[in-house]
């Protein structure tokens, strides 16, 4: 049942239909949850007894960190989908996720740095958590660069999928770095044995912001996936037109509407 639903949803034609219908609702839901999250973070959550108002940076730093890792995790699953099943949407999903994940990772690093200076007395230390997040950003940049260097999307998909799987080794390092090594960064305070250590007055605004950022990220991802499908259709039509011009025929026959040239050897 679940497998059948998943197969239906991930069929390129079905994907274009349901994601087109869901897009405006998800965008509205993102705006609503983000508005609620910001209200709770700024006007309901109290200042921290030690950090004072500076703790408000946490409400953007933690969701950004979560999404930086979340998108890399989803890219890893897509990479498996590309290499094992050669699913036509897996590569599209992976390519659309990379810039979004990179943006959230960059936000995490910069907001963490701006939080670190008043709290730790420094913008940056080479401790395990900070360094592994920086490595994640560099891997994202490497993946985006690799895509841009390869003209053929099918060749690029395989190379990027392998690079993504190699980079996935960094994910458990990020998560457990604060337990494995002595770091300036605090240990896990939400996802930990024994439950969260954050006071509910701050935990619920934080969870709302995490939910809002996740919905925003998923909305952007679906939108970018649709754009990527469009880009591949444009590429196929351009090649088809060039071939027709080479053959001496001046006109192009456009692909029928809805026929995404996904998975074709281009």
């Amino acid at each position, binding site marked *: 049942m679940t497998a059948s639903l998943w197969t239906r949803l991930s069929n390129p034609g079905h994907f274009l239909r349901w994601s087109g219908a869901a897009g405006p609702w998800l965008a509205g839901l993102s705006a609503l949850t983000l508005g609620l999250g910001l209200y709770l973070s700024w006007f309901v959550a109290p200042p921290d007894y030690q950090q*004072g*108002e*500076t703790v*408000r*940076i946490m409400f*953007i*730093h933690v969701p*950004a960190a979560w999404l930086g890792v979340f998108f890399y995790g989803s890219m890893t699953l897509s990479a498996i989908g590309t290499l094992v099943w050669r699913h036509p949407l897996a590569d599209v999903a992976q390519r659309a996720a990379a*810039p*979004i994940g990179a*943006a959230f990772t*960059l*936000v995490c690093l*910069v*907001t963490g740095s*701006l*939080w670190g*200076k*008043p709290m730790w007395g420094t913008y940056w230390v080479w401790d395990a958590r900070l360094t592994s997040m920086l490595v994640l950003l560099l891997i994202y940049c490497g993946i985006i660069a690799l895509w841009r260097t390869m003209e053929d999307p099918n060749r690029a998909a395989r190379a990027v999928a392998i690079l993504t799987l190699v980079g996935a080794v960094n994910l458990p390092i990020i998560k457990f770095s604060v337990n494995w090594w002595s770091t300036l960064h605090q240990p896990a305070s939400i996802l930990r044995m024994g439950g969260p250590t954050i006071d509910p007055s701050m935990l619920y605004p934080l969870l709302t912001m995490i939910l809002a950022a996740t919905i*925003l990220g998923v909305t*952007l991802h679906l*939108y*970018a996936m*649709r*754009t990527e499908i*469009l*880009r591949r*259709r*444009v590429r196929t*039509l*351009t090649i088809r*037109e060039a071939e027709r011009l080479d053959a001496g025929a001046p*006109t*192009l*026959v*456009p692909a029928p509407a809805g026929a995404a040239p996904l998975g074709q050897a281009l």
Partner: protein
Amino acid sequence: MLGFETHLGPHAGFILGAYAFTGLVMGGLVLNAIRDRRAQERALEDLQRRGRP
């Protein structure tokens, strides 16, 4: 604005800077997504228009 900054304490610049940077990156991400979509739609329309006899 001065009152708001005073309310945020001595580290107001760090707090507002963090939110401003996040807003800038998220805004850039959304605008870039829209710009990219429009560019692809224009390219597709152009190709289909050229294809009509």
